């Protein structure tokens, strides 16, 4: 049977920090995609070739 080691408090702290950074990156990506969509819709509405 495989022995499963519990995370130490330091491990948990590091994982929480990494998860926060990843969440911020994903949120930034979401904002980028949203703004780009708005820009492209605006350009299409004004006849600018996208």
């Amino acid at each position, binding site marked *: 049977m495989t022995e499963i080691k519990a995370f130490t408090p330091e491990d948990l702290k*590091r994982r929480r920090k990494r998860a926060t*950074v990843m969440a911020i990156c994903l949120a930034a*990506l979401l904002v*980028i*995609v949203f*703004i*780009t969509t708005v*820009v492209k819709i605006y*350009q299409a509405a004004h006849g*600018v070739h996208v």
Partner: protein
Amino acid sequence: MSIEHAEFSDVTLPLGGQGTASDYFALLKPRVMSLVIFTAIVGLVAAPGHIHPWLGFITILCIALGAGASGALNMWYEADIDAVMKRTAKRPIPRGAIEPGEALGFGMTLAAGSVVMMGLLVNWQSAALLLFTIFFYVVIYTIGLKRFTPQNIVIGGAAGAFPPMVAWVAVTQSVDLGSIALFLLIFMWTPPHFWALALFREGDYEAANIPMLPNVAGRPETRKQILIYSLLLVPTVALPVLTGTAGLLYAAGAGFLTLVFLKAAVDIYRAPEGAVSDKACKHLFGFSIYWLFAVFSLILVERLLNLPVLM
């Protein structure tokens, strides 16, 4: 000529997993990335046509992330030689801060993310060229050339020359003569820049068994090659003018700077071996960075001021 893969039985790569944000940032090779970003901005501004400022920003972001991905994948593959070179021994992987597998995962994620983002948000032509640039740097240069041929820098230099072309394609959706001129500027600049470095860091490359030109062909041949490539830089620097990308300000400024570059190459060629030669090499290495920055700045200033082109 080829040199077999180096074996470093006395080098151990400690397990990492403790990497901080700054360690991951170092994996992106921020200094190289800054030059990539700058030349890409020039490509974006110099390209004929219009791109929305937001899409221009996304283009530069994707190119920067692609460059960072290339840096991380390069450090993953070169962890063994980085560990024995003084200049690179403190990088995150040989220092044990990041495991090679973590760097590989980080690099692949960034590579895929930057290419897909470029394709979906800007256009697929520039995304394809960005993907090819990452492939060229990691597979052709890092894995294929660097350890096997003293011409590694000549061919591999293309990887660093693509970013302004990628940005140009983001605007025009095609590879025009103007973008090829910008590409050639960096391509012809790379060999004298890196061979000057290799001449005063020869021991480092020798310890890592990397067949840089000074270790394989000798110092006199390297000095001759630096001079030849510097001479080739003279007609190359005229190409942005001939392709209608640059005007009088660029012609005067870049012409003068290239003559100074050529003078530094002649100094290396003529310098007697020893401290004088090392000083001349360090001078050319430092000046070459300034040269690239200044020459691209001239194009940027001309385009921002909307100055007329000569052709």
